[in-house]
């Protein structure tokens, strides 16, 4: 296993955000963490790369205790793409070169430049390399951010909602790229997401979080409508389209009528709404 998360808890002041979160992830695996807003997904990612220090529990990168590692050591093993980055007047090549920060001392070596060029070619960003970030679209920027994380040569890639604010084409491109890189280079990838269907399509494993805890963990094929309903409070159906599981929200009245009286009360409880 590359990353082992063991019983991690986190509190903001006295308010518990994460409660006893445990999971493991191996090489060539892509894990999607799903759950409603404010459930602790981003906090979990920040606890995994030292930005936040867990209140309890352990995180191991291979067999090393992350909580005992210095920030620079962590940066050599885990790369993080936050939800939002500030955009400055800096060329994409230099922005990606920044990813070599954990490996460079006083000055950049030719090897660092060559590695940046290699990742630019891998992601097909040659046409953008000398363009300033403040002249780029959202999709282009996200690709640059991912390239910056990859040039760190990490063992684990952490991505916080990598496809938020992207159009459909860019979403698919970015997720396909992440999957290709993670599975092709012996890395582990963890991404938080809101788009369940994209998670089911691209991830090897899916974790559902509810109230700061892991509610369910499964391969995409094992996800059930009940899990989704319990986490989001929304009745859904899961259909298979061209071999991919697709989650479809179900009209609550329709669901209630077809399921009969026994299910009716359960749905009402889960959704927190009334039907007339």
């Amino acid at each position, binding site marked *: 296993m590359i990353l082992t998360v063991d019983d991690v808890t986190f509190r903001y002041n006295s308010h518990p955000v994460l409660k006893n979160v445990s999971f493991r992830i191996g090489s060539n695996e892509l894990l999607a963490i799903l759950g409603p807003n404010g459930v602790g997904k981003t906090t979990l990612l920040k606890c995994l790369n030292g930005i936040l220090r867990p209140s309890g529990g352990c995180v191991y990168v291979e067999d090393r205790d992350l909580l005992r590692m210095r*920030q620079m050591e962590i940066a050599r093993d885990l790369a993080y793409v*936050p939800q939002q980055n500030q955009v400055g007047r800096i060329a994409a090549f230099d922005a990606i070169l920044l990813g070599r920060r954990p490996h460079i001392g006083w000055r950049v070596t030719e090897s660092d430049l060559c590695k940046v060029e290699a990742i630019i070619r891998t992601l097909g960003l040659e046409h953008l390399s000398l363009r300033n970030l403040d002249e780029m679209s959202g999709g282009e920027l996200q690709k640059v951010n991912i390239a910056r994380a990859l040039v760190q040569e990490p063992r684990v890639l952490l991505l916080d909602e990598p496809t938020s604010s992207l159009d459909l084409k860019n979403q698919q491109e970015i997720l396909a790229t992440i999957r290709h890189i993670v599975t092709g*280079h012996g890395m582990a990838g963890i991404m938080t997401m809101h788009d369940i269907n994209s998670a089911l399509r691209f991830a090897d494993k899916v974790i559902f979080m509810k109230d700061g805890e892991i509610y369910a963990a499964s391969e995409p094929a094992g996800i059930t409508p009940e899990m989704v309903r319990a986490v989001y409070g929304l009745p859904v159906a899961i259909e298979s389209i061209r071999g991919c599981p697709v989650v479809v929200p179900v009209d609550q009245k329709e669901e209630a009528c077809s399921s009969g009286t026994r299910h009716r009360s359960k749905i009402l409880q889960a959704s927190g709404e009334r039907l007339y």
Partner: protein
Amino acid sequence: MHLEEGTVPPGYARYIGEKVFLLLVGFALLGALVVFAIAIGSVSYDPFDVLKTLARMPVSKQLDVVVFNIRLPQVLAAVVAGAGLSAAGVVMQSVLCNPLGSPFTLGVSQAAAFGAAFSVMVMGSGFMQSSVSDAVTVVRPGITTMMAFIASMAATGVVVLVAKVRRGSPEVMILAGVALGSLCTAATMFLQYFADDVQLAAMVFWTFGDLARAGWKELGLISAVTAFCILFFAANAWNYNAIDAGDETAMSLGVNVKNVRFLGMALSSLVTAVIISFVGVIGFVGLVCPHIARRLVGGDNRFLLPGSCLVGAILLLAADMAARVMMSPNVLPVAVLTSFVGAPMFLYLLVKGYQR
């Protein structure tokens, strides 16, 4: 993940070469300007004679005295002060994640002015004299300088302390700085209200920046502090680049954001405090020169820092030259002219939308 190595793209080498070329052009321009600034004044000399004198090939004893005792210290003060204030501006703008970051934003300049006013009023370090250049002078400049320095470092200390309590957030630093600057301005006005004519004149006179105040000894101290701080900033250029990308990104790249922010703030305030304590308040340079440089060489701090130092030095030197020549033999305060020289240039670059 292990990356297979590619090759350095020729386009990138050319792109970096352009930036280095721009910096070299700036350096050459500064060198030429230094010679002209020494040559031009109430009495002008041939620039070639100045060059010979600088190269220790004496042309005349009078020129030797004028160059080494009067004009060279003033010109070097302009270069060092311009470079130092501009470097401080770059770092403040970077670590505070705010384009309005400057010694003024954090109340350092206002605190120095208060320190000088306090020294004039309470310690009696200002008096009236009749001379061609200055009607008022500061009789004990050492005390005034010391008080200005103490006040500006105290202001920095308060800002850093408040930020430390609030976990180093840049917004808190800026707001604390603005509040402190306002407090110092009010305190200075309070002193001015109760000051007599001579004291008031001395206080106002001190706030007009004057590069001629620095002799060789003062210049040595300013240069040593400025050189140390600029070297420190240059060594942290990658860290500032990382913070420019956002705190979380910087932390994920192994940067200790809080330390870099505090040290950057403390040293940029120190260099500012030392400079303005000796030569008076010089506004505009710290705020706008980094923006001018950013438009010329981009936002990468590896190039932005030396670029800003060059722009700051050139701007302050040009303003000082203009201040000496415009109403010769009278000398205008250089702080008045920095904005006159720099603002049109900045507006031109803004309108033109200069790339990289």
